[in-house]
Structure formats: structure tokens, C-alpha cells
């Protein structure tokens, strides 16, 4: 069993799909901060078989949780303060997501237009479906 020390303030992002933690790390732009991050891959999980976990030592409020809801609503977000889990944050789907992921449709104007923001809009709240603002192509996963 691998042991990773506990954090004083920040987030533990649990139940990340196995193998996806590095993608989440980049999409949350954690590579651009000087936060201490532990990336745990393929941890055993009774619920998922295998899962990834991210532990991020950072001020609470400094991570864009909207992005997480958009990427995967099943991720559990534990908010840590003074070394303890304060609460689990409910993820709410944002109405709009800007410049997190790129539209993959090669026929979309975003594939050629310079300086254009990549924007996905929530089109079906119940099913959590996002569509590209320009071509209306469905977001099919990161």
C-alpha cells in the first residue's frame, strides 16, 4: 500500500477514472501553479475497481470546480482545511465552459480561425450534454 501524506489545506479529488488523473491535472492547469500535487494512479477502489486520486495543497477556492463538473460529474471533491475534510463539494454543471477543451470536429470553424475561444454550452442539463457554441458538435469526453 502506497502512503501519501495528508494535506493541510486544499482538495482531494477522488473517484477519477483510472488513467485520467494527468489529463485532469493539465485541464485544471495545475501545471501552471506552484501548488504541491500528489497524483495517485490506479488506486484500488471497491466502487470502481481502479481509480485515480489527485491531492492538491492550495488555498480553498483557487481551483475551478466548474471545469471538473464539466469533465466528470462523478468525481468526488473533498475540501480540506486544517488537515481535515471540511465537506464534500457538490459539482454544479456550468452553463458555459471556455478554453478548457478544444472542439474535435475537423469541420468546425474553430479548427482554422485564429484567436477564437473554444466555448462549450450546456444544452441538456439532465443528461449533462455540452455542445460547441459554433458547430453544435457534442462534447464526447476528455
Amino acid at each position, binding site marked *: 500500500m502506497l502512503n501519501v501524506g495528508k494535506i493541510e489545506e486544499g482538495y482531494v479529488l477522488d473517484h477519477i477514472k483510472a488513467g485520467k488523473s494527468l489529463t485532469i491535472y493539465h485541464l485544471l492547469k495545475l501545471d501552471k501553479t506552484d501548488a504541491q500535487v500528489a497524483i495517485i494512479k490506479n488506486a484500488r477502489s471497491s466502487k470502481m475497481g481502479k481509480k485515480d486520486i489527485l491531492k492538491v495543497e492550495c488555498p480553498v477556492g483557487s481551483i475551478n470546480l466548474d471545469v471538473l463538473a464539466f469533465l466528470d460529474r462523478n468525481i468526488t471533491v473533498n475540501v480540506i482545511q486544517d488537515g481535515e475534510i471540511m465537506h464534500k463539494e457538490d459539482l454544479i454543471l456550468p452553463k458555459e465552459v471556455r478554453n478548457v477543451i478544444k472542439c474535435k470536429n475537423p*469541420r468546425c470553424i474553430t479548427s482554422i480561425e485564429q484567436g477564437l475561444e473554444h466555448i462549450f454550452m450546456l444544452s441538456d442539463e439532465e443528461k449533462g450534454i455540452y455542445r460547441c457554441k459554433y458547430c453544435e458538435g457534442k462534447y464526447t469526453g476528455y
Partner: protein
Amino acid sequence: MRHLINPLDFSTEELDKLFDLASDIEKHPEAYEHKCTGKKIATCFYEPSTRTRLSFETAMLNLGGSVIGFSDASASSAAKGESVADTIRVISCFADICAMRHPKEGAATVASTHSTIPVINAGDGGHQHPTQTLTDLLTIRALKGRLGNFTIGLCGDLKFGRTVHSLINALSRYEGIRFVFISPEELRIPDYIVDMLKEKNIPFEEVIRLEEAIGDLDLLYMTRVQRERFFNEEDYVRLKDFYILDKAKMELAREDMLVLHPLPRVNEISVEVDDDPRAVYFKQVQYGVYVRMALILTLLGLA
């Protein structure tokens, strides 16, 4: 400022007003001859399209306005790598309204966010072609006398045909419409449209052969079945005749059924049908000019 990017951008009430205006233009064209004197439309066509571009240009000329533009990306600064956003900023300084066709999906949306003049989407790749949908709706309203309470058959390539998808979405906002989808298995209507119809409790059925359905229809919307859409030549040869409308099939249809087609027609409607009074696809082109005239007036605030 109003633009037209998606066929659903206008509410059904707004469409009613637009179609009333188009009908008035049809009846009294002389009253509109000078409505756009001094106004210019820019037709920015990054890919060739004879009918749509000429229809827009005719519409503006009929209103007394003038036309500038390009009909091929190679003849524009797009060939030098200029973005759509920059092009529309420049065009905004020259013209009062712009009709844009572009091979990339969402190009007109980009243009509308940077434009200081109304933008009309004249087709953005396989995505939307709203003025074709408005043309189809006006043709149905003018010739059937109503938008609603009819059975419409859509025949041919229902999988890739954007005009078909837009028309279904637009008609699904009216009461009493029943759809009959007539296509080979390979070119069936996409699931997301089937789901939308089920959700709204709109009746529809899917059939393989045109003969099975034609007798029940008030309207038949034909589209082309292209050879390259089939997985193998054998299937194409076996099925293609099911989707060719000829005199024999027209005999099975009601006397007041109308045949529409977005054109260009290749061989899916036999030329022998052209003289049948129920064949209205060339009248449809004329309604396309009226609806574009009404749209230009509406977006310029001159209606």
C-alpha cells in the same frame, strides 16, 4: 442587432410576420422596388453556390439596393489567411447587411459576434442553411395555405441531408404535423431527431419504399440519394429506383399532394414529373427570393 444564423432564431410569431411580408411582396412587388435604395448587401461566399448567392443578389436588386461580394474564397483575402472575424469587420465598413456562406461549421456565428451589420447564414458547411428552411416553410404556407395539420414525407438521404434536419426541426414547432421518413436503412434519419420527435410526442413512421407511403402524403420533400453514401454498389443498384419519383409513382399520390425539392435535382425526380401541377420545386425557388427580400427588410429594420 438581429442576425439569422439558425432556422430556429426566429419564433413562430416572428416567422408569421416574415411570411406575411413575403406574401405581400409576391402580390405587390412594385411597392418594394425602392425600399432598399442606397443600401448594399455583401454576398461573401467562400465556396461556390449558384442558386443561393443569385437568390440573395436578386432579392436585394428587387428591393432597389446594390450588391458587392465574392463568390469564391480564392478571390478573397481568405486566400491570404484572413480570419472570418477580420473579414466581417472590414465588410461592415462597406455594406449594410451580409449573407455569408462558408465551408466550416459555425463560421456565420463567428461573423455575427464581430459584425456591426446583420449577418445572414447562407450555409455553414453541413451545419445550417436557414434561408433554405424559410424558403421551404414559405412555399408550404403559400401553396397549402397553412403551416400545420398535414402529413409530410421526406424521401432520400435523411442521414446527411442538412436541409431535411432543419426542416424537421422547424416544422416540429407547428401543430398537427405527421412525418413519414422514406429512406434506405443506411440513410435513416439520425437518432437525435427521432429522440426529439418522441420527446415532443410528434407522430412519425419510417418506411423503405416510396410507393408504400406516397398515397398518404400531403407533401413530399425529395432529396438526392448519392451513390457514394452506400457501402456497396450492389445495395445502391438495388435501392436507387425506390427513390426516383416518376409518373407511375405520382399516379399513386393524392391530387393535391405537393412535391418539393431543395435543388439541384439530379435524377431523383424524373423530368417527366416537371409538368405535373403538383411539382412545385421551381416555384419554391421563386419563394426563396420573396423570403430573402422579406428577411433583408426585416433585418435592416425596414419592414
